[in-house]
């Protein structure tokens, strides 16, 4: 299939964990797919970002690939063991010419060669100053089946109380934006950053800038940002020489401003809503900080209390998948919340439903255990929203049933969802396994399962029969 692409591709790599190197460049040799062609070999959780297809030859395809690659990197910059790989076509070759008709398949092929779990890519078009971006994501089939699952863990262990998020390929809703929204942003120079007269590594050096210098980007050309240089002249800087803060951050409620990154609190506050990011710093032991301006006063806020808003909703979705697989469920909740609240995402109901499933699961998992949830409240709304978005999909019904069962302690309510799931997909064993487990743990003669203490309506009339029917009905259909 995409051997031509695999042969021609060049890879640029950034590793997110602090101890790793950045900017390693690797090139495949024709016909080879040796282990030495792989990068980030010791990083277990990684995604490959391919440059975006650009059928109109607008030049935006390469830039968007770089931008998404670096925004994902920013989003997961504090997650050890995670990394992002950029796959780009060499020189001025357009990826669209190399991908031919393979698209998802080619992206998966390239990601598989790098042992990555995810492949992100897209397509871009420009018309009348408006930029139209479609983003796509493929999860590799060999991703561990349990990586995107919701398990109920008990002591002693009970097997079978689990449901999975099943969708693996996503065509996100198209985004309509413009160059300013994408590229006009602040950048923070890294060590040895060089401004050049053109977007070319051989172009004349305009000046060197010190590490930490904030640069104002106005546009992008390939992998180069066009920035404002002294005396209002334009200059270019390679994306690998800058850190890339999110363009904007959002606060929910009022957030105190600090005098410096990790510094003392001031009296000003950032109100609810969005603010442009003016600077970004990482402080040893104090995490990542953003600088914003409120009513003419500049101050700093910790990244942990605000939400970044990246260029494309897909970046939040992908970052959420990193966080979920890395068992950082609070962070996953934040990213999936950002995704579902982004404008226009509902145009693709399948990715929206999956985001709601993962948001609901992250919410449950972030609490730690069932008792912590039991004395709080069950937020099953994300699962209900997933059902509303994809009412014919069995997966969100199974997930909501598990949540209802364990947190609300209602088997009667959970059964309604399990019965619906079996009706929708009799070949999916999930509801069957849950029903069989419940039958064994709750109704088997002599059963002494602790599960009985958690579920309040076990003996409600008709419930036992429904559990038995569901277990046998699903099992029969499965044969």
């Amino acid at each position: 299939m995409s051997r031509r692409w695999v042969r021609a591709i060049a890879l640029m790599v950034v590793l997110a964990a602090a101890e790793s190197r950045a900017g390693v460049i690797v090139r495949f040799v024709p016909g080879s797919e040796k282990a030495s062609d792989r990068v980030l070999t010791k990083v277990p959780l990684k995604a490959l970002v391919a440059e975006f297809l650009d059928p109109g030859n607008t030049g935006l395809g390469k830039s968007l690939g770089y931008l998404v690659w670096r925004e994902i990197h920013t989003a997961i910059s504090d997650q050890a063991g995670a990394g992002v790989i950029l796959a780009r076509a060499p020189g001025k070759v357009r990826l669209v010419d190399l991908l031919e008709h393979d698209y998802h398949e080619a992206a998966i092929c390239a990601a598989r060669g790098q042992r990555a779990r995810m492949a992100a890519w897209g397509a871009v078009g420009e018309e009348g100053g408006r930029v139209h971006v479609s983003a796509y994501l493929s999860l590799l089939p060999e991703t561990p089946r349990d990586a995107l699952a919701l398990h109920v863990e008990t002591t002693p262990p009970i097997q079978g109380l689990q449901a999975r998020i099943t969708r693996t390929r996503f065509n996100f809703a198209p985004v309509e934006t413009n160059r300013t929204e994408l590229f006009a942003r602040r950048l923070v120079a890294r060590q040895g950053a060089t401004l050049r007269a053109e977007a070319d590594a051989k172009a004349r050096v305009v000046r060197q800038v010190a590490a930490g210098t904030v640069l104002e980007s106005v546009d992008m050309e390939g992998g180069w940002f066009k920035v404002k240089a002294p005396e209002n002249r334009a200059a270019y800087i390679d994306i690998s020489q800058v850190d890339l803060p999110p363009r904007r951050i959002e606060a929910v409620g009022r957030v105190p401003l600090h005098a410096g990154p990790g510094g003392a609190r001031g009296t000003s506050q950032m109100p609810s809503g969005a603010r442009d990011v003016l600077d970004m710093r990482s402080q040893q032991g104090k995490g990542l900080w953003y600088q914003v301006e409120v009513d003419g006063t500049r101050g700093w806020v910790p990244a942990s209390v605000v939400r970044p808003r990246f260029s494309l909703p897909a970046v939040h979705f992908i970052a959420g998948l990193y966080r979920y697989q890395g068992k950082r469920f609070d962070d996953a909740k934040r990213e999936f919340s950002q995704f579902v609240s982004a404008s226009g995402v509902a145009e693709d109901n399948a990715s929206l439903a999956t985001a709601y499933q993962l948001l609901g699961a992250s919410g449950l998992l972030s609490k730690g255990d069932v008792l912590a949830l039991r004395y709080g409240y069950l937020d099953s709304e994300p699962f209900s929203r997933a059902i509303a978005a994809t009412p014919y999909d069995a997966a969100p019904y199974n997930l909501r049933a598990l949540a209802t069962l364990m947190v609300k302690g209602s088997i009667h309510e959970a059964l309604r969802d399990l019965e619906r799931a079996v009706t929708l997909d009799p070949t999916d064993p999930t509801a069957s396994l849950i029903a069989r487990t419940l039958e064994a743990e709750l109704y088997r003669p002599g059963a002494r399962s602790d599960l009985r203490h958690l579920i309040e309506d076990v003996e409600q009339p008709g419930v036992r029969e429904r559990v038995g029917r569901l277990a046998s009905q699903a099992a029969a259909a499965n044969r």
Partner: protein
Amino acid sequence: MTHILFALFCVFATGVAGAAPLVHGIVTAGAGGPPLQGTGVEAELRGNRKTALSTDATGRFEIDLGSLFDAGDLRHADALVLFFSMSGYDKATKVMPVEAGRFPQEVRVPLTQIGAAAALEDGEKRRLERYRGAPGSLPLYLIPYTLPPMGAAEPKDLNEQLRANLERVILTHVQASGVRTSGVLSVKLLPDESIRDVDRMRAYGDYLKALAVITGAGSIEGQAAEAQVVQVASTYVVVPQGQAQAAPVLYVDDEVPASHLASPRLYHHLSKLWGRSTVLALGLREFAEVQARNDRESLTRIRGYVQAERANAGPGNEVLVSQLNAFLELVDRELKR
């Protein structure tokens, strides 16, 4: 031999919406053909399907939704689905969105005669020959949309842009659905053709061994340039390949702001629907191939991707879901044999 009769007529945003739940319509033999008396009409709101009536001697019908459905269904419905059946014609389904309790008032339903095949002349065949796909390929053909002149953009350029974008969105949709195709799927433009007749489109598709044929037309509504809306009527015809069954036809009427016509937004309107229709077309074709040899493994795989396609359907996709359900039942029957 099992038959499935799929004919699908979707109309979005047709007619003038009004508060009174009274729907009028006319059923004809083909677009612009004679009225069809005695066509059975059924109506569905929120999953409740009710037998309504038959068309009169002029092919017309009138449905009083208030007498068929309770107030709750009328208040909360987001789509009205009408089903039409007439002996000798493909069954048809019309889906009309209901927004804020406002129901469509007037609908037109052209029914297609079952098995009506148009014969191609030798000249047509010679003209089409150069567009034939490579052996083993799975082409869909785009007959150029008839579009009004929009600013600097030439209709020819718009159609090439539409073709390229449709190809990508259809292929990415099919690949996201997990369908493994036996050949290379592509969308080819038939630049010199302007046919709109479904039978002839099928005949073209049949001659070119196509998976489907797509076309459409747009007309401008509204006066002021900034308020102009283009009514785009599209047709997606699945081309049957040897199976003794009618293949689906999908009609979509849509409104696109004129400013979007020359932009990539045009294909966004069509992408999901065409992608889903292509998955169905691929499923039907593969089903016809494996049914004869009772290939259970392939049947199970077909079931898997059709099931996945249904799982991705959102609200307002009742027609798609009913198509997929019918197909799933068909596959299940084969698996149980």
